[in-house]
């Protein structure tokens, strides 16, 4: 059997509609051999968690550029814990001030990539996590 591809759910929460970043990342992760599923715009934390379950995602990538990261992302993390699926890797990308990035990591986000991060580094980070899981 062929090796299972890493499944990444890319999500946009709330009313943030900046999609250039998520488009570029989707392409880069596909090029790196991953399966990418995109939620589309205007998702609630619950919709994202439901999609992660339905799509059997290994990784949840949240793109945030509008400044409302602290409103939505902690709710996603809480819902993941409620569903006992907080073993998934959660990465965040976008315009995130340093203090918010720190706070999100304390809440349970595994890694925050701010603007200027290299797409290749994001793919490598996900791949290394995957290998550490022994999958």
């Amino acid at each position: 059997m062929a090796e299972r591809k890493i499944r990444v759910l890319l999500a946009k929460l709330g009313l943030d509609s900046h999609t250039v970043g998520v488009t570029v990342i989707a392409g880069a992760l596909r090029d790196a051999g991953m399966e990418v599923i995109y939620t589309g715009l205007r998702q609630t934390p619950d919709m994202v968690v439901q999609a992660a379950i339905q799509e059997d995602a290994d990784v949840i990538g949240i793109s945030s550029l509008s400044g409302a990261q602290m409103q939505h992302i902690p709710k996603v993390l809480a819902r993941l814990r409620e569903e006992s699926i907080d073993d998934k890797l959660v990465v965040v990308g976008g315009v995130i001030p340093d203090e918010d990035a720190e706070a999100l990591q304390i809440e349970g986000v595994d890694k925050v990539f701010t603007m200027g991060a290299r797409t290749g580094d994001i793919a490598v980070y996900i791949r290394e996590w995957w290998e550490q899981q022994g999958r």
Partner: protein
Amino acid sequence: MKRAKPEPTPDNPENAAATRDAEEKRWRRDMLDPALAEQGERQEEFRTQQMHWPVKDLYTPKDLEEIGFDYMEDLGFPGEYPYTRGTNPAGYRQDLWKMLQVTGFGTANDSAERWSKMLEQGLNGFIIEYDLPTTNGYDSDHPLAEGEVARAGTAIDTLADMEQALDLPWDKLQHLNSVCNAPQPVNLAMILAALEKRGVEPASFTLQMSNAILIEYTCVGRYIYPPRHGLRIATDCIEYVIRNHPNWIPISVVSAQLYAARATPVQELAFGFSIAMEYLDATLARGFDVDEVAPYWSFITGLEMDFFEAIAKLRAYRKIWARLMKERYGAKKAESLRLRLMSSPGTTGLTLQQPLNNIARLGIQTLACALGGGAYAITTPLHDEAHALPSEEAVRVGIAVQNIVAHETGVADTVDPLAGSYLVESMTRRMEDEVFAEIAKVDALGGALAAIESGYFQKELARSQRARYSEIEDGTRKQVGVNHLVQPGEKRSIEMFKLGEEAERLQVKQLARVRADRDEDLVTKTLERVREAASGDENLVPPILEAVKAYATQGEICDVMRDVFGVYHPDSLTAGV
């Protein structure tokens, strides 16, 4: 267009060209080649930043001869067809461009205060940006609005907010630009009703609405209804304004948004014009003649850092529009052929890293705007905009940059100063030819609406976005502070404009107060009228105006239309992701 080879004249016999070409050969052999033998060129090849067109080492009159460049056909005189040299015969020698600035923060009261200050500081007008709940047609107390209220712009839930927002020194204001595409008829109605309440004569200034819903589907994402219904709503606004407020501008094709989504200049112009023609066809179907409506079409573009590409884009922009209107629509009036263009330095060229460098970028781009000529208004984004919302210091610097270009460089003192440049004219022509070729592709798909519904625009843009990022990542394209002259361990430190949760709380409270004070029966009755109009083909603006005056909220009015039109949720493929 027929392009004849220039005829030899007594002063300019054909042998002059032969002598020149022989001289160039000699120069290459005796001068250039030995110099390059000593030290080669610093790059293997030179290409433009966006289009990746090869850039030659030298441009001469021969380049113009090869494309059959003809002064009268390609340029003509300023203020005349094909408007390549500008739409105003006197260029900037009468008036400089209008200096605008994008702004809009917090509650309506915060914004009015800030805008009044900017008008006092010497701006003629400004662009109102609304917060995301407003542009997405949600009230401030909607669950999706949480954390976004009054963050990226002004929050408008009801007429009460618009009345406050428009508390301005009206004697100083010439130009107001309102950006609220998906709920455009509601936004228009709010402005009309607020002007009436304030006793401001609508004809005393120009209201420009972007009304740019087709661009939202293509790349911005603040859409509500399926594209067909989006187009109908936009056309209702266009028709209403043309019939009732003939000095306003009811449609702007914001190709700057395409540019911000990393469209190449050719994509930007081709997609932008295709979209413009889709609105125009829809408006003509309402029983207008092309010369009655074409003068209302206006465009907003953004510029990249590649200086000559940017200038060629602005010049080609005017020429292509003139040709489309004349050749395709048979427009006759000069106002129909003359492009109304507002340009701005783009935020895409700005970097998060080393943000003060952005002031240099803004200066260079503003210079390109001025040299490209004919833009009747220029907006300057702010040097910290790549980072977050702009600070007050950045607003001051933005105004200063425009004044420096206007008063200290001399570029505004003669019309279209770069005309005749072998390089600029070659590039302008290439831009024109490639844009027409891309428009033909969109035509073959059935036009802009079909191209949006099938995801063509979205997929093409996604390709450009990925290409652009890989160029920066692999270093083919240098960006200072990003992949060149990077300071190791650089700490970003720039003042950021922040808004507390206080603004959101106040806004939600004001909304509750308005809801408590209004006549509910009247709200229900007027909303029912909106539903009837939406279900048929009656123009939506008048019934929405009645609902707004009854203090129905924007979310309530949009919900009625959501019921009738449905909500758009493109799949991953159509979204281009």
